[in-house]
């Protein structure tokens, strides 16, 4: 059943560019898939451990800026630059997480917001550092090289579409694998009761930091993708609070701590945000944020485990839990 559904979805998504030839619609799909990828990366630390990050945009920004700066200043292809950016973001993510994960309470959420905002404000007000042009709030443009696959630049949107599909499948596969491994069990145990988990030998600091590292790495890759796709990056869009909140919202509304939840959240909220921005954005700027807020309140009230919960029940699978208790599994 799951296998059939997955195969059908895979075929549909792979064939989509054949049916959708209008660049605009393809662009919308790339946007949805990008958010699905980013929300899934966020989910690895926040969904599974219950530690809320509202600063993941900083990691995306670090990835995007580093890969772009390396291309501009050193001519290094973003295919490599994105991994350098991801390694740097991983280091930053672990440094931010380290002191917080030793404490109990909302410190991680507060620290991530503060860190991301400081980084954004600093970037917006920095024209140049050590001779490297950052161009402040204006942002950086990726130098155009025409059709240059080796430099992550393509004609048309179809290649970008397939790249983000591959990235999304990758992050989902990592999540799926993690959920079934010792690490997934430990993270969920920490989320439910950190003291209880530690009594069973779980080094909570180490596992929280591992999850943060994986999540930071993947988020930064997404940031680089975004910069290369739009060929433009600025502090507001690529490391602003809006992006952090959107990722968290998609994860929470869709269903935290599940493989499909954040993807579902992105598929619902990205178009909703796009439509409200397009139709009402001119008259009531910021209205999409009000709507996001309402959606979050409703989701918390009626579906605290996310939209994935009723869908699973519909499919007769109460949770990942019930699979574990089928006699012949594993």
């Amino acid at each position: 059943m799951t296998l059939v559904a997955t195969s059908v979805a895979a075929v549909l998504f792979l064939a989509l560019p054949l049916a959708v030839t209008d660049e605009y619609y393809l662009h919308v799909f790339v946007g949805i898939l990008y958010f699905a990828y980013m929300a899934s990366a966020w989910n690895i630390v926040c969904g599974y451990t219950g530690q809320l990050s509202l600063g993941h945009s900083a990691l995306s920004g670090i990835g995007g800026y580093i890969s772009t700066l390396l291309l501009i200043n050193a001519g290094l292809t973003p295919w490599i630059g994105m991994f350098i950016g991801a390694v740097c973001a991983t280091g930053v993510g672990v440094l931010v997480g380290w002191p917080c994960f030793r404490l109990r309470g909302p410190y991680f959420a507060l620290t991530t917001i503060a860190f991301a905002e400081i980084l954004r404000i600093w970037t917006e007000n920095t024209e140049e550092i050590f001779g490297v042009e950052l161009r402040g709030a204006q942002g950086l443009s990726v130098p155009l090289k025409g059709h240059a696959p080796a430099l992550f630049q393509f004609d048309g949107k179809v290649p970008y579409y397939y790249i983000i599909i591959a990235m999304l499948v990758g992050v989902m596969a990592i999540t799926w694998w993690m959920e079934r491994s010792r690490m997934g069990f430990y993270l969920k145990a920490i989320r439910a009761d950190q003291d209880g988990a530690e009594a069973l030998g779980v080094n909570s600091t180490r596992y929280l930091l591992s999850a943060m590292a994986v999540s930071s790495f993947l988020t930064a890759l997404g940031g680089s993708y975004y910069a290369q796709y739009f060929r433009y990056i600025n502090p507001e869009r690529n490391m602003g609070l809006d992006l952090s909140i959107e990722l968290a919202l998609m994860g929470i509304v869709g269903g935290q701590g599940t493989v499909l939840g954040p993807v579902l959240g992105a598929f619902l909220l990205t178009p909703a945000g796009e439509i409200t921005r397009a139709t009402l954005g001119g008259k009531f700027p910021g209205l999409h944020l009000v709507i996001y807020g309402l959606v979050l309140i409703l989701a918390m009230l009626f579906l605290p485990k996310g939209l994935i919960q009723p869908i699973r029940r519909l499919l007769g699978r109460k949770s990942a839990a019930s699979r574990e208790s089928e006699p012949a599994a594993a």
Partner: protein
Amino acid sequence: MPLLEVKGISKSFGGLQAVKSLSFAVEPGEILGLIGPNGAGKTTAFNMIAGYFPPDTGQIRFKEENITGLRAWDISHRKIARTFQLSKPFGDLTVLENVMVGGFHHQGSRAAARRKAEEVLGFLGMTERLGTEAHNLTVVDRKRLELARCLATDPELLLLDEVVAGATPAEAVAMMEIIRRIRDMGVTIIMVEHVMRVVMGLSHRVLVLHHGETIAIGEPQTVSRDPVVLKAYLGDRYGRA
């Protein structure tokens, strides 16, 4: 050679001296009861042994190794397991998954952790509840589940904090039987307990704490007739009698 040796550990919280120079030793295979009125320092003593906070002074040795000040997970890897006074199962995981968290202790593979968990749940007679989400369990089943999680880590020393609290008399008897069988497997046990019938019935020796200090240690019959103990529990009038 004692399995666990506690030498003069103390802990104070602000002005409150929760445990004052506590010393005792536990022999392999023994059940030691830790009793005392509320606030006597029993759970504080457990928290120090299990690595939840370090003692202010003193030393804790397990199998001749100094384990004072190690973190909870390191203590767990030295084969000391504990239950909590307030059982908080990993609520959105099933019974089986809860115990698998303990089962991953020694084996990284999911299949091995699962085998271990099924074995332990079978031992505790919880096989029919494998797929139940833990937050749906009764208080007594939560206690049993917590015990199962501990056993899945293959402990040599088990610290039980009020495992029969909230149980009916019949359930308490069943729990006593389980504790006896765990001891028969070779696990050494220290139990904090308020239900005297249980602690007196199971323990080889009983240690009585009062205001953080040891006021008596010995066989259950001797301790229960000790005037100092009676006074601590029941007040001056009974102590003199």
